[in-house]
């Protein structure tokens, strides 16, 4: 695909890919939307209500209904217009211009203009957002020749920029509310004023959050719903029961345990959407601390990789919701996925490799003992995966001690103290490897104390050069070649064992419909959602 294809935006682009994807999403049959009704959605309670400077998922799931981004993403993770109507990039890749909606207004009546985008980019995303700092690092200036045009000037091409400018990655904040204030402590963070289809009404902490319809939304006739109620139900069983009892309409973010999903398999009554979280491109992985004895040896890491039956893991722990991962980029990121040469499940080969590395079985049948840490804030699946891996390692003579800690202790242990052998986590790889993958392997990202950096301690100067070149490459085909080589290198060196490509499920009653299918549906504005009459 040529670069220009990627850069031409326009209405209808996202719709092209629609019909090919799984039934079961709301688009099965075209139905006329009905106006009215309040959707009751279960999410995990967010700490604040803006995603402009924090990537916590549950914040995004709520704030996306109130605040918007420049684009959203379709199932191929290609940008679709949101607050930006269209965009184009200069031939040298150094100037990208967005044309903005002219009829969008903030919820307090102030018109939305280019100044809001400029402020958000320079003052919020570039300075405060954890990924924004990297995404917009090359931005030298943001020009606003007129109130509805924004030109981003770059010091080097940044193809990845287009993969992170939706309401979750780069949420636009109202300049007139935030300018000159301490952005992190602005009261609007918990009572946001946005341009989105729904307005913030009230937040009863620990219980629920109410949004009401924005009658002045820039898409005429939308939203269809009169409002949204977000409910916070901490217990998974109670969530399933509430959905079955009709007390709620939707659960976002895999809140129904995979083991309960079969109860919602009746298409006439429920919809299970497995595409809403494609944008996150999450992978359940095991990161190996290469600074530890034995684990610095590539053969040992490969052996551990060969010992894990990824298909069995998907089947048993994730009940089939997910895919065995083959490498650092999940297959859903079609633009960059490369199968390469993954380690197959082969315990015999694993034992052979360990023998070669001089780690023979002792008199008790054991070779060595290591630990595996995971955060207790993670899902039940993560805990079970640990149990699964423990049994798998036992078969090749590796004794595994499981450690589950709360996230403060876990992050401290892994990223500050480095006091672990293997850690498991579900990490978002994001649609662009420069953003979501490079951080885990890059030598310069071995940063003591900072979470989700290169915590394995793996360092490979050759790979560093490839990753850095890929980041600055403006030509898609060339960039792809670089990313392919990158994937092959980390498959071979195995500092991180990518285990399962995760699926984020949105489970709803069949009454809940949505016109558009999105790759970032978890963070959809839901202006196009409605509740079919009973």
């Amino acid at each position: 695909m040529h670069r220009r294809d990627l850069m031409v935006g326009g209405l209808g682009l996202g719709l092209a890919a629609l019909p090919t994807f799984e039934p079961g999403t709301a688009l099965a049959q075209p139905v006329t939307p009905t106006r009215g009704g309040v959707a009751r959605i279960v999410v995990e309670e967010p700490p604040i209500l803006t995603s402009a400077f924090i990537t916590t998922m549950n914040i995004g799931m709520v704030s996306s209904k109130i605040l918007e981004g420049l684009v959203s993403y379709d199932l191929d993770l290609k940008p679709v217009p949101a607050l930006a109507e269209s965009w184009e990039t200069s031939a040298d890749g150094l100037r990208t211009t967005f044309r903005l909606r002219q009829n969008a207004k903030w919820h307090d009546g102030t018109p939305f203009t280019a100044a809001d985008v400029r402020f958000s980019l320079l003052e919020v995303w570039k300075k405060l957002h954890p990924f924004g700092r990297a995404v917009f690092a090359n931005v030298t200036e943001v020009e606003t020749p007129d109130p509805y045009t924004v030109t981003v000037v770059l010091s080097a091409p940044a193809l990845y920029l287009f993969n992170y400018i939706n309401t979750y990655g780069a949420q636009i904040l109202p300049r007139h509310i935030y300018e000159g204030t301490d952005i992190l402590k602005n009261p609007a963070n918990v009572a946001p004023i946005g341009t989105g289809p729904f307005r913030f009404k009230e937040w009863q902490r620990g219980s629920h959050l109410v949004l009401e319809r924005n009658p002045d939304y820039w898409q005429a006739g939308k939203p269809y719903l009169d409002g949204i109620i977000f409910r916070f139900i901490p217990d998974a069983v109670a969530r399933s029961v509430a959905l079955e009892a009709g007390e709620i309409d939707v659960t976002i973010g895999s809140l129904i345990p995979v083991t309960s999903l079969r109860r919602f398999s009746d298409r006439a009554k429920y919809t299970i959407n497995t595409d809403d979280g494609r944008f996150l491109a999450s992978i359940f992985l095991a990161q190996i601390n290469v600074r530890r004895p034995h684990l610095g040896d590539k053969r040992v890491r490969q052996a551990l990789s060969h010992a894990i039956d990824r298909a069995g893991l998907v089947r048993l722990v994730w009940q089939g919701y997910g895919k065995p991962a083959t490498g650092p980029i999940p297959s859903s990121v079609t633009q960059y996925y490369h199968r390469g040469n993954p380690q197959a499940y082969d315990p015999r080969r694993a034992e052979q490799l360990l023998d070669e590395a001089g780690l023979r079985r002792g008199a008790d049948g054991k070779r060595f003992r290591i630990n595996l840490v995971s955060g207790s804030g993670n899902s039940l699946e993560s805990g079970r995966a640990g149990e699964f891996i423990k049994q798998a390692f036992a078969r090749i003579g590796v004794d595994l001690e499981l450690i589950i800690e709360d996230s403060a202790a876990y992050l401290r242990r892994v990223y500050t103290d480095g006091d672990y052998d293997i850690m498991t986590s579900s990490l978002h790889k994001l649609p662009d490897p420069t953003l979501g993958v490079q951080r885990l392997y890059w030598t310069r990202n071995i940063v003591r104390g900072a979470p989700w950096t290169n915590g394995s301690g793996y360092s490979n100067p050759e790979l560093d050069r490839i990753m850095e070149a890929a980041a600055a490459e403006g030509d898609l085909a060339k960039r792809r070649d670089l990313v392919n080589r990158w994937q092959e290198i980390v498959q071979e060196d195995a500092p991180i064992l990518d285990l399962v490509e995760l699926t984020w499920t949105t489970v709803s009653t069949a009454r809940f419909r949505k016109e558009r299918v999105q790759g970032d549906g978890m963070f959809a504005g839901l202006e196009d959602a409605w509740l079919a009459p009973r």
Partner: protein
Amino acid sequence: MSGIALTAAPPAASDSPGLLRRLAGNRSAALGGVLLALVLGFAVVGPLLWPGDPWEMVAAPMLWPGEDMANPLGTDVMGRDLATGLVSGARVSLLIGLVATLIAATIGTLFGALGGFYGGRTDAVLMRVTELFQTVPTFVLAVVLVAVFRPSVTTAVLAIGIVSWPATARLVRAQFLVLRDREFVLAAETLGMSTPRLILTQILPNALPPVIAMSTLTIAHAIQTEAALSFLGLGDPNVMSWGTIIGGGREQLTEAWYVCGLPGIAIIVTVLAFNLLGEGLNDALNPHLQRR
């Protein structure tokens, strides 16, 4: 929230002739003993009937009890045999209950004995500390301790022990206050017996029976607490206790309630056994109540 709630006033009996006979005659104690024997039998004989690693995934997941006689009590969500798990759970839960109670009884006896024996400022300070632990919500404190210091059997045992001792301390203190002025104690003191010896050989043996009665209740409570901790996701991931099974099965409750149900019933039976036994012991040690 400890066992004190169910114990009556501490008995003053210094000796209890025919204790065993009275115990056997006590319906609560007898029933408690039988139930406990069953649980212990399960823990001891179980490994012979259902040997193997409780973590091993041996069959199809979520088999119902009786569905396949190879796994008579069914399997959990990972296809692990529940009977094997319950056996392991019996051993772990009993052990956790016992050790935690031992810790609680030791701390409690120490505090109570010193406070009751010395009185005055020592007593005042010790009682303030006891009060402190009775004022803090105990389970919340246990959760804090386990969560913060990495969930494991060791932290669970320590945490439960640390939050469970105040009731024992108060009981022992009350006993010591009474016994301190008894003639045999005064006599021993006049004979020049050293204080530690006096406490250990004269007073403590007489103060212990009600502590034992209370400890059986503490065991019951410790087993419940361990299950609750596991339910909140604070169990030891390397050890299969009843709480672990409940914690792991809680999300499948509506599909396979037995995964949570069976260990839950095991806990109820065990807790009931200890409560009955404690109550019987208490009655037997307290002839004052026995008369009625």
